[in-house]
């Protein structure tokens, strides 16, 4: 077992805090994220409001804590959808013959040829704004990556000696797939899922920022940053802290994901 680097420990700690905020926000703040106090608008960071208040006098720390949940949920939801659809397409590509493989491969290239934001815009233009259309759009962005990894893993494992041996025992195909192929393919897929989670959280908050995600009264990081854009000449803190939270969250998640990918790459070699 390799020793964990300090950066990795920080990443794990950050992730635990983030998950805690999303699960039990009440543990991190006693303030109400939606309680407006018009006598205390734009209070600079200091005692009482450590990160200051926004244009409605709402406590920024409380809003950042409560904002962890929608921001994480959109990211996690998109990754889950992308993983699910990507797995189906990847397995189909690997198993259903050359023609299917070619057709699916070309279709994935079509998805990849459109810049990610425009792909999401297209989906939102069709389905209308909101958290669910955002997730569907973002999952289309992540799908090709998962499909390619799953396809490659299935092809690699199908030829692996231990899978051939399992077939040799006279096991049914389903049993071989469930007992050997799936557990062995899981590592690279989960590593990709972790890295994608970071990217999807940024992408989701970008949508919130342009007004196509959860709408403003919701404490979502991207939507908070959008509001702060309009008051930037008055106060810097409503723009600085939600973005800092977003950056740290993404940094923690990608650090962890990239370490996972390196470990798996090292193991299979």
């Amino acid at each position, binding site marked *: 077992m390799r020793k964990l680097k300090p950066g990795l420990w920080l990443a794990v700690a950050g992730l635990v805090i983030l998950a805690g905020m999303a699960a039990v926000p009440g543990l991190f703040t006693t303030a109400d994220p939606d309680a407006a106090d018009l006598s205390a608008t734009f209070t600079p960071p200091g005692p009482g409001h450590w990160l200051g208040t926004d244009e409605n006098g709402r406590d920024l720390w409380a809003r950042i804590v409560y904002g962890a949940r929608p921001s994480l949920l959109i990211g996690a939801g998109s990754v889950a959808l992308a993983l699910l659809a990507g797995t189906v397409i990847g397995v189909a590509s690997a198993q259903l013959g050359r023609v299917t493989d070619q057709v699916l491969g070309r279709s994935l290239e079509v998805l990849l040829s459109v810049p990610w*934001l425009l792909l999401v*815009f297209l989906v939102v*233009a069709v389905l209308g704004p909101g958290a669910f259309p955002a997730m569907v759009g973002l999952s289309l962005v992540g799908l090709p990556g998962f499909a390619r990894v799953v396809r490659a893993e299935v092809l690699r494992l199908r030829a692996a000696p231990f899978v051939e041996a399992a077939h040799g025992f006279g096991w049914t195909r389903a049993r071989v797939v469930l007992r050997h192929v799936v557990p062995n393919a899981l590592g690279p897929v989960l590593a990709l899922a972790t890295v994608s989670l970071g990217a999807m959280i940024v992408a989701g908050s970008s949508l919130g920022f*342009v007004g196509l995600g959860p709408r403003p009264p919701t404490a979502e990081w991207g939507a908070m*940053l959008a509001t702060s854009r309009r008051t930037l*000449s008055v106060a810097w803190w409503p723009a600085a802290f939600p973005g800092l939270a977003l950056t740290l969250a993404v940094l923690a998640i990608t650090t962890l994901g990239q370490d996972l990918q390196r470990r798996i790459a090292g193991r299979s070699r």
Partner: protein
Amino acid sequence: MARALKTAPAGNGAPAGAAAALVRPVLVRAGGAVAVLWGAATATFVLLRIMPGSTADVLLARSTVSPEIRARLIADYRLDDGLGAQYAAYLSRLVRGDFGESHVLRRPVTEVLAVQVPHTLALLGTTTAVTVGASLVLAVISARAGRLVRGAFAAVEALLVAVPPFWLGLILLSAFSFTLPLFPAVGSSSPSGLVLPTIALAAGPVALITGVLRESMLRALDEPFVLTARTRGISETAVQVRHVLRHAVLPAAGLLGWVGGTLLGGAVIIEIVFSRQGVGRLVLSAVQNKDLPVVVAVVLLSAVVFVLFTMLVDVLTWLADPRTRTEAL
């Protein structure tokens, strides 16, 4: 890897032969590109068909128009004919560069785009120039530096890759437009208005490419050809730039496709942060108004740009490195 190492018959240093050997792989690539674009066009056609409501209403974005305009639209798209005729009409319009009319803006889509595209191209141009220039310079500097400095570079790079460009834009605006009034906060007419958006957009790609370039430069420094170059007595800078960098550029070129896609998407958000004119604001308002002819046109055009860009990168890689010259490219 044996296949990948096979060189083209023309070999190195025979420009005429190399050009001839280039024809086939370029044709293969072009065929693939056309297939991808055809797929994208087909996908948008299907999308417009499966939207709830009649296709005419979808294309009109439910705006009220005179019966004459509606009738013209139905005739243009052949909406009263069978699906095959509609599809043929749709494709032939796209091939002719006709993206229909925005009934929200009440003008042809191409006309609307022609006004906005130059603004976006200006931002993309400066960003590309900064990305290439800054990455090369920073990679050479950091590759020559000691372990500690290299570590610091790597840490800053990891941070910059994680920073969402739109947040970086907000911070730059706050610092250099509002706190220190050095650059304009809104607008895009003056060149100084391009400075902050370019930095916000280029930061991530610069960080990523610098890291990759430095890693492959450090690897290349151990290669025998570097020793050979040094024994010829040329300066260390010449070794770095002429030999090591040339060798190291290829892994970074592989990232350019990704960077291109990121920049096209990122420019949209950066335009909104800085309230710049451009395709980004146009397409965002089109999405909000369900103005699908505009959205579809921007999506398809960006696919064309992206596909051409990737092809260009492939061909340049092919020209720069004889080792990548396989039959299939």
